[in-house]
Structures are given as structure tokens and as C-alpha cells.
């Protein structure tokens, strides 16, 4: 799991980094809310953030509000880590948008368990997001198939999504899972292959008579 630590105190930041590395996580650590904001806006930013509350400059609570204002389909999981341990502070932290709350001094076992809980939520979020994308793709596909299909009155080519005219069989092959095989209908057989058409007709008549 990739984790971003935001903590202004050097010894606490190092303790957190060392413990999380020991637990097998990949860690990035910054010492201010401003630095964290730069990291968080990157497309590949870690999804789990361990955030100190009181820091000079942009504090943890204000950073949390900023993060929630940009959260999209895949929100960050934020754990507030602070000395502030009274009920009022915990409620304020959670109301602002943090997902979990750990008070200092922290114990590695509790930290590990809460990080794992966050990891489970992020994994579940990712799975839901992936299913939602698959569903959306299927819906888009169905909409395309159900939409009006412009077809040439003479050559019967179909106009595709990119405004190109395609043979009907090419269009079907590229827009569905159906496999196209080529054959000749009786009317076309009569026009294009009259001899074969006559022979088939004759055979069919003889077979009907013998039956």
C-alpha cells in the first residue's frame, strides 16, 4: 500500500515512516500541508494519507477540506493523527471529512490495524469503480446499438460513429460480438447466378414430388 505521511515533527515523521516500511508499505513523507497538497494533486498520488492536525501554514484540517473539494470517483482515505484527544476534537476531525482518527502517542499495532482497515476500503472502492466503469461501457455500447443507424438507401453502407461509411458486415463486426459469415439469399441467387438458382429449384421440386 502506498501511504503519504504529512507530519511536521521530524522524530514522529521518522518513526511513522520506519514502522510503515517495516509493515511492508511504500511511504512518502512530507513536513507541511503545502508540500502534501502538491503531492496529492499528482495523478498517481498515494490514496491513503496519514495527516497531522496542527502544523504551521496549511494545517491538517484545512488540507482535509481541500482534499474533499477535489475528491472524484476515487476519494482519498484520510487518517488524522494528532495529540488532540478530546471528543469534541475527534468529532470535528471526522465531520471535516477524515475517515479515521488516531491519537498520539500511537502504538504500531493500532496503526497497522487502522492502515489495513483503510486499505480494505480503498480496495473495495477500486473494485466498485472498476465495476461501475464496466457497466458504463456496456451501457454506452447498448446505446450505440439501440441508436438510429444511418444507412445508404442505394448501396446499404452504414455511417459509423466517426462519420465514415462502412459496409454493413464491417459495421456489425466492429460494434458487436457477432461473427459475420457471407452467404447468398434466394432473390440475389436468382439475379446473380440464374443457372444455379434454376438447378436448386429443380432439385427442390423433384424432392417434393418424390416425398
Amino acid at each position: 500500500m502506498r501511504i503519504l505521511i504529512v507530519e511536521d515533527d521530524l522524530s514522529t515523521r521518522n518513526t511513522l515512516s520506519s514502522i510503515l516500511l517495516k509493515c511492508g508499505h511504500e511511504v512518502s513523507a512530507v513536513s507541511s500541508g503545502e508540500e502534501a497538497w502538491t503531492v496529492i494533486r499528482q495523478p498517481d498520488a498515494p490514496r491513503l494519507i496519514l495527516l497531522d492536525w496542527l502544523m504551521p501554514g496549511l494545517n491538517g484540517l484545512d488540507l482535509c477540506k481541500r482534499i474533499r473539494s477535489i475528491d472524484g470517483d476515487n476519494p482519498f482515505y484520510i487518517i488524522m493523527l494528532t495529540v488532540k484527544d478530546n471528543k469534541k476534537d475527534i468529532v470535528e476531525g471526522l465531520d471535516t471529512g477524515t475517515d479515521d482518527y488516531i491519537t498520539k502517542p500511537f502504538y504500531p499495532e493500532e496503526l497497522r490495524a487502522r492502515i489495513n482497515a483503510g486499505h480494505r476500503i480503498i480496495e473495495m472502492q477500486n473494485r466498485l469503480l472498476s465495476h461501475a466503469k464496466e457497466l458504463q461501457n456496456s451501457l454506452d455500447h447498448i446505446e450505440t446499438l439501440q441508436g438510429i443507424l444511418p444507412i445508404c438507401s442505394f448501396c446499404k453502407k452504414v455511417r459509423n460513429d466517426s462519420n465514415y461509411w462502412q459496409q454493413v458486415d464491417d459495421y456489425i463486426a466492429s460494434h458487436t460480438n457477432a461473427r459475420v459469415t457471407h452467404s447468398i439469399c434466394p432473390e440475389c441467387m436468382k439475379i446473380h447466378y440464374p443457372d444455379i438458382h434454376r438447378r436448386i429449384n429443380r432439385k427442390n421440386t423433384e424432392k417434393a414430388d418424390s416425398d
Partner: protein
Amino acid sequence: MSFVNCDRSIFDPDDLMERMMGDSVLARSIAEIFLNDIRNRIDMLKDRLNENDIRGAELLAHSMNGAASNMAADKFQEIASRIEKASRLNDLDAAIFLLTELEDRFMEAEKEIRKAIL
């Protein structure tokens, strides 16, 4: 590891070892960082209080409070916490008054930490 001669009211090495997952190398490394960092922060705190920057002093005292709690340096933490509260209440005189005690508690904590794990 056993820490027989340590004054646990000042520094509790067993508690620190538990926080460091029993890793004595990590505990020593964090202790060195803590001592150097806090020394600098005490100097910065003095500057903030001399400049009447009470919010800056509050943040510094808060950060020392958190660091000391993770280091299991209880008495030092208690004074840092009192300076943080005094600063939050804009009581500059009380915060300045507690500075000497903060320095004393830090020296005491450093002595115990060095004796136990460094």
C-alpha cells in the same frame, strides 16, 4: 533488553521499545533525532516568545508535546503541553515562565534516554 536503572517517570524505555516494535536500532535512531530536533525547537520556542509570536509558540509547543508522547518522555511532555495550553490562551507570561522548566525537563529526559538506550 532490560532497563533496570531508568527513572520511568521521566523516560519509559519499555514503552518506547513497544512503540518501535522491539527494534532497538530504530529506537536509538529515533532517540537521536528526537534529542537534536527538540534542542533546536526549544531555541525556536524562545525566539517565538521573545517576538511575542504566541501562535508560533503554540505550534512549536504542540509539536514537542506530540514528539515527547511518542518518545515516552512523560515529564517533558507535560511541560510542553502546559506551554501549548498557555499559548492557546494567549498567556505569554505563563508560557515564558515555563520555559526554564521545559529546558530542565529536557536535560533530565536526555540524561535518562542516553543512559538507557544510547
